[in-house]
């Protein structure tokens, strides 16, 4: 029998709806505050249970508060996502059909690339191929700005990648279509990653996962094939103390085939 929601649950959900995505520490503070305001019993370290209580009645509405890791800092975040399908239902209200098409193309471009990045030139060129309605480069620039503002894409030095929110929301799609883009360490989807140079191996690891796995090792070696790991080892984030939660097993396989992997 699912537990009835209280005001504290509703307050938390409303805030999640406003932000879209929130890091775990903020979620914890919010959880505490919601319990305090509505005089509910606050149990520290039970954020997951609290969120699951909200997720139960959300499920028939095809909504879910899902946890995921940021590829940039390795932090855990909670995001409110749509389960309905892999289409971006919530974005639909802000973006017209051709804008959504551009986003879809940009996302596929990023996922197809080796480094999980797309330059602004790449995306502007994609704008020319939009079929639903012609889009000028100037309009495409505006759309890109909005996508960054609404936290669907993130931009750094003129290069665009998928934001944490986007990855969490599109995770089932990415798993399904890009089956081998999975981190060897945490088994979550990997958009930006370092890859083993051994053509027979080719495993991927998130930057924060690399930092964690090779911490304190002067000569890092690939955990799978033991070849020397040639890439620069990123600095470990101080707050990266725990292993990120392994992702729930998706409908498609979790195993990344390591040999002769055909990338899409």
């Amino acid at each position: 029998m699912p537990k009835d929601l209280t005001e504290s649950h509703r307050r938390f959900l409303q805030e999640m709806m406003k932000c879209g995505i929130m890091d775990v520490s903020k979620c914890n503070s919010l959880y505490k505050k919601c319990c305090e305001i509505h005089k509910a019993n606050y149990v520290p370290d039970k954020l997951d249970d609290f969120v699951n209580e909200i997720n139960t009645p959300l499920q028939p509405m095809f909504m879910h508060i899902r946890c995921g890791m940021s590829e940039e800092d390795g932090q855990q975040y909670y995001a409110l996502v749509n389960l309905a399908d892999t289409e971006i239902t919530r974005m639909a209200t802000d973006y017209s059909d051709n804008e959504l098409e551009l986003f879809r193309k940009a996302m596929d471009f990023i996922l197809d690339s080796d480094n999980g990045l797309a330059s602004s030139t790449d995306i502007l060129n994609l704008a020319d191929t939009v079929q639903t309605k012609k889009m000028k480069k100037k309009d495409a620039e505006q759309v890109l700005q909005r996508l960054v503002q609404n936290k669907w894409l993130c931009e750094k030095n003129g290069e665009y990648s998928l934001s944490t929110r986007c990855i969490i929301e599109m995770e089932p799609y990415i798993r399904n279509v890009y089956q081998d883009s999975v981190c060897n360490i945490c088994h979550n989807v990997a958009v930006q990653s370092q890859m083993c140079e051994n053509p027979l191996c080719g495993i991927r690891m998130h930057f924060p996962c690399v930092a964690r796995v090779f911490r304190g090792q002067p000569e890092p070696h690939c955990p799978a094939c033991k070849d020397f790991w040639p890439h620069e080892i990123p600095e470990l984030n101080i707050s990266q103390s725990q292993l990120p939660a392994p992702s729930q097993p998706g409908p498609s396989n979790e195993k990344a085939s390591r040999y002769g992997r055909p990338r899409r």
Partner: protein
Amino acid sequence: MSQKKRTSSQKSQAPSNRLSQVARNEAVDSDEEDVSLTEPSTSQVQQSLARLTVAQVDRKMAEVLQFILIKDQKKMPIKRADIVKHVLKEYKTIYSEILKRVDRTLGQVFGMKLVEIDTKNHTYVLINKLEPVELNITDMHTGSSKTGLLFVILAVIFMKGGIVKESIIWNMLKKLKVKCGEKHDDFGDVKKLITEEFVRQRYLEYARVPHTDPIEYEFRWGLRAEKELSKMKLLELVSEIVKNWCQLYAVGVFGGSCRNKTPAHGRPSGKKQNKQSLVPGVVLSDAFVFFTLCYPEYSCLSLRYILFL
């Protein structure tokens, strides 16, 4: 290869495509209202319900709810005709049943309520059942400075008895460095914002004053503002402002320490840190301006120098 994978999800994309179309067609919807939409009898509703599976009804309910939530993001009132046309379609006979369930779920899960603001055209807004509370945790999302502006306008209208001439609002806003016709950093085209956007969202009403030449307009509270804002809360806020203002006055009269710290012109940027923001985007000095507009008899006091306006 991926083509194959995508087709499997093609079927489930249909509802969301519909939703995206819907959002863009807001403007034209009202013209195509289904005139044959009469209230079905209870027995008709029951019959229709009996013919559908539980799963079908639940799915429809979920779609209607998503539709309402999406429309509400833009704070646009939701028309019954739109719900029927774009989401319910052939299920329209059980509209009343679906709406009842949607309202129940909205209350139980989201803490919101569907309120009919126009019984003739059957238009709804979503209002929050939870009291507005200062959370200070989540980042100020972009809507908040607009809310501050709206709040100030609503407060002025309220204090002035419920109707205010447009010119008064602009005079007030000018003192807050928000000018009609000028592009504002936070608000953009302010005239458009308050005469169009806030009106469309039903927070304000903007009506022509009859028999005026040149044409004058006046502002009133909109239906959504009436439903969402407790006038009592507003009065409390105004009295807080007055209380704080009195405290500052005391500082001014008995020890003008404020005055020396800041430059003679404009508002120092560091100020916002000291003064507790009562409403997002509204700092105490702004509140003082608003106060003097409501009580002009006090504006002659030299407090203006203390607050650097």
